[in-house]
């Protein structure tokens, strides 16, 4: 029993007042005695504590005090957790973290996942609720998501329930729980948490002090914990270039067996080329001991755009960790055309940075054919404008990422001699680790406003822009406004670093793929400037329930937020398709989306960690920790006011008091 209005306990001050009134009461039965003489002697001692003497054996006073006490208790609004009042606001919080995607052979004939099972329970509960009861629906995820707020249309709620799919990323369950609790807005209510109890942040969640009464329902049959756990997962899938044949890859796969006995897993490694589809396939059988892991190297795989590894072996409770994707390493440095009249320092530095250089000079025509196609970017050491004046170069340069270095002429206009050597670098990939302290730059090209609208000066020297970086039409663009031969920069240790970083910047957009990302997380991706729409197209992945399947579409709009984009929620291989305003595909990159292995790992320790999760509600002292199986009585756990009981008790007391009074036990 709790009290909602503990402050009303101050009314208890009335109790001593009642007692005081009895003490001060002047009603005495007059009795004449011959003399007070003896009584005076006798009462001398007694009079010292006389007020208390008056309170002895007083039925009426005791009853009145009791009545007043009950009245005070009633004012304190006692409540009891019991049979729920069925019309209060309820928040249904559904844990849809990766562990909820686990299915077990014994969980029903259809092999339902925990989430599916839980959703059925929720649906059954929903059907029992009186119509019009406001119910909010919250699901966990990277961030808690409100699917319905105080929705009283239960049919719509049932539809929403059907659409809930597991979330394979890192779930912030405690935040979601605290958020669900806050939906009550301080009112009385009921929070039902539908979960398997396997939370990474169980400890944190258990420390939360919730306002509303919170009940935990176990998703799935409770006896499931007794059945042996069977699962194999691909812990890692790595590629390295074969030493003997360039472009060929050797894959290393690590498989973990979470079963109680050793298993043989069949591993299929495939190589895909984007336009041609599967080009190679190999199968490996891996015998893995119980509760341990095993690594295996494959044969040399032919060059491909991406590789997949798929694990097979029944029974398997978790499907999300049976596939892995990887992209070949190596073509990061790029191939550049160096247009220069001769700069040894630059050539050496670029070579050090791993850039394959194709040398050219402003006098020569632009490269054509095979050479031109392989080039990733161009470095023009000299006046770009002069080069553009020749017709061949101008067109050719328009389609390439360009890095140019100005050669400010000594007597020319538009050049400036810096008056100080103070260099200021912005936070930028090109200028990371670069300060240009004590570096001398003789002359800088004075950049006009229109000259470099495509980028920002990431490094200023003596107040003038020295390095400008940005993107032009989605392509990286870099400009050094000084001639390397006018500076002592090539002699500085910073120089090779600057060149490496500059080369990486120029390579930036040409990276073939996006790499891998955690489901549901955000990642920083530089989209093309002219990208109007971006979509995820799923290429491959484990067979999982997903919203795309529900909607029948395999494409997903990309949620963009500044340079951050949201990784799809469901593990698999995705292609990021960027289209311009006309709908033309301007870029497409691949992303391997992996589930949060931590979250899935929680499933493995089923029986132990499940007990750690406990909710502490402010209004629940005795009855917290109650885990009610959803199959049981479900309308438990609303606070029930005890005021009317207090009133009944009070009436009874008053009748008793009347009887006492009638019988003259007024003392």
């Amino acid at each position, binding site marked *: 029993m709790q009290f909602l209005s503990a402050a009303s306990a101050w009314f208890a001050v009335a109790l001593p007042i009642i007692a005081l009134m009895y003490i001060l009461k002047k009603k005495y039965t*007059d009795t004449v005695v011959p003399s007070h003489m*003896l009584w005076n002697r006798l*009462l001398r001692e007694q009079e010292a504590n006389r007020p208390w003497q008056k309170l002895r054996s007083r039925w009426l006073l005791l009853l009145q005090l009791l009545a007043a006490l009950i009245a005070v208790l009633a004012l304190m609004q006692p409540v009891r957790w019991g049979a729920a009042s069925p019309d209060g606001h309820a928040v249904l919080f559904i844990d849809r973290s990766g562990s909820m995607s686990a299915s077990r052979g014994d969980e029903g004939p259809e092999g339902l996942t925990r989430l599916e099972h839980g959703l059925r329970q929720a649906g059954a509960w929903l059907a029992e609720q009186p119509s019009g009861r406001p119910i909010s629906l919250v699901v966990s995820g990277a961030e808690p998501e409100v699917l319905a707020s105080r929705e009283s249309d239960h049919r719509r709620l049932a539809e929403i329930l059907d659409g809930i799919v597991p979330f394979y990323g890192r779930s912030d369950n405690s935040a979601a729980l605290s958020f669900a609790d806050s939906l009550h807005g301080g009112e009385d209510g009921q929070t039902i948490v539908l979960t398997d109890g396997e939370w990474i942040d169980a400890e944190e969640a258990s420390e939360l002090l919730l306002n509303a009464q919170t009940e935990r329902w176990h998703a799935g049959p409770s006896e499931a914990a007794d059945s042996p756990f069977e699962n194999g997962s691909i812990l890692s899938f790595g590629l390295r270039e074969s030493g003997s044949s360039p472009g060929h890859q050797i894959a290393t796969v690590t498989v973990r067996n979470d079963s109680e006995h050793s298993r043989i897993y069949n591993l299929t490694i495939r190589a895909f080329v984007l336009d041609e589809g599967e080009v190679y396939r190999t199968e490996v059988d891996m015998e893995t001991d119980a509760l341990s892991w095993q690594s295996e190297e494959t044969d040399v795989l032919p060059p491909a755009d991406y590789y997949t590894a798929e694990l097979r072996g029944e029974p398997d409770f978790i499907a999300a960790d049976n596939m892995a994707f990887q992209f070949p390493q190596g073509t990061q440095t790029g191939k550049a055309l160096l247009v220069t009249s001769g700069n040894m320092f630059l050539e050496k530095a670029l070579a050090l940075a791993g850039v394959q250089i194709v040398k050219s000079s402003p006098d020569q025509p632009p490269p054509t054919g095979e050479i031109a196609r392989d080039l990733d970017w161009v470095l023009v050491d000299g006046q770009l404008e002069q080069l553009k004046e020749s017709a061949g170069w101008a067109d050719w340069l328009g389609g390439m990422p360009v890095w140019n270095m100005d050669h400010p002429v000594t007597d020319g206009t538009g050049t400036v001699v810096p008056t100080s050597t103070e260099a200021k670098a912005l936070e930028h990939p090109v200028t990371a680790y670069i300060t240009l302290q004590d570096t001398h730059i003789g002359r800088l090209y004075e950049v006009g406003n229109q000259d470099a609208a495509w980028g920002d000066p990431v490094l200023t020297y003596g107040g003038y822009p020295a390095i400008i970086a940005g993107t032009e039409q989605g392509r990286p663009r870099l400009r050094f406004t000084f001639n390397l031969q006018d500076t002592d920069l090539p002699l500085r240790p910073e120089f090779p670093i600057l060149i490496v970083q500059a080369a990486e910047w120029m390579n930036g957009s040409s990276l073939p793929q996006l790499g891998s990302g955690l489901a549901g997380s955000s990642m920083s991706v530089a989209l093309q400037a002219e990208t109007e729409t971006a979509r995820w197209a799923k290429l491959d992945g484990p067979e999982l329930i997903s919203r795309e399947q529900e909607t029948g579409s395999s494409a997903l709009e990309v949620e963009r937020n500044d340079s951050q984009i949201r990784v799809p929620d469901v593990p698999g291989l995705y292609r990021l398709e960027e289209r311009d305003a006309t709908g033309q595909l301007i870029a497409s990159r691949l992303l391997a989306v992996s589930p949060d292995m931590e979250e899935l790992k929680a499933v493995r320790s089923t029986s132990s960690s499940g007990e750690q999760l406990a909710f502490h509600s402010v209004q629940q002292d005795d009855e917290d920790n109650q885990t009610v199986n959803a199959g049981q009585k479900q309308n438990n756990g609303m606070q029930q006011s005890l005021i009317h009981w207090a009133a009944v008790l009070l009436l009874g007391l008053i009748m008793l008091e009347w009887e006492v009074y009638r019988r003259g036990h007024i003392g």
Partner: protein
Amino acid sequence: MTSTKELQQIKGGDEAFSYLFPESGLLAKLERVSLAGGSRVQGTLAGKRRSTSLGGSQEFADYRPYTPGDDIRRIDWNVYGRTGKPFIRQYWDEQELHATLYIDTSVSMSNFGGQEANKLTCALRLAAAVGYAALCGGDRLTVRTFAGQWMDEGVRLAGGRASSLHLFRYLADQKPANPAAFLPPNPSETTGAGIGISDQKPTSSAAALPPNPSETREADASISDLSKPFRQPGRLPRRAGVSWVFTDGWYESGIAETLLALAAAGQHVVFVQLLSPQELDPRLDGELRLIDAELGTGKEVALSGGLLRQYRQTLAEFQDELRRLCADRGIPFVFIDTSRSISDIIASLATIPNTLRL
């Protein structure tokens, strides 16, 4: 000896007699009883009591050598004949005994004890018995009543049975108007009394007033002083004799002083304390305002068994104190439970030295 005729005359002629002597045959017993007077016999007239002085009674006291001037008629010639020396025969002087009975008629006496054991009734009956015995013994008798600060003139009676009628009339006049007036409320009656119980007053305040008009309530403090009435002029006996004080002893002060004053007046004092059963063992319960019958003041008490036990203890201490006070002065202390019969009391008095003699 009293003739039956005379007795019938007394009995029939005065209904006071039946009030004072509800037990038949008591008078006859009383005629054999006399008051113990000790050596304090000093009357003006010759009486039946041997005085401490030598005088002209028939009772031989002693011889003494003749001295010139003695009455030669009192020379014992036989002794002279044997010894050749003149000796004078001396005789005891026999005088009447002066007995004084002081009866406390204060409210605390008159209105407590109920019909059966009213303290004043008991005191009056005892005084009648003692007085009758004194009169039969030929003693002079003075009876006085006192209440509060006041003491009346009383009645002076010459010795002899003839005066007894006066005595009885006087005593019967002092009887309480309504002996049951101050019965304490019976707890068994109050339980069913219902709502009105708190408003019910067992006695009106008027009834609690002392019946004697001369008693004033102003002198509240002095009401509880026993010596006050005795200090009124002429209220102490002029001659040595016997004084009986009948009282309940409910006096805060003055008891020792009174005893001293009486002793100083040559009195052989008998202090008789009369207490009713309700005082000895009060049957009170609940929360009461105890009203002092004389002072009219109230005292609020929540009564309990423990408190009543304490009361009985305090009463015992008080009686011990009185007993010691009397013993220090050679005064017999007589405690009387008023529920006992007079003949019982007389019989037990006879066992107490210096009170009554059978």
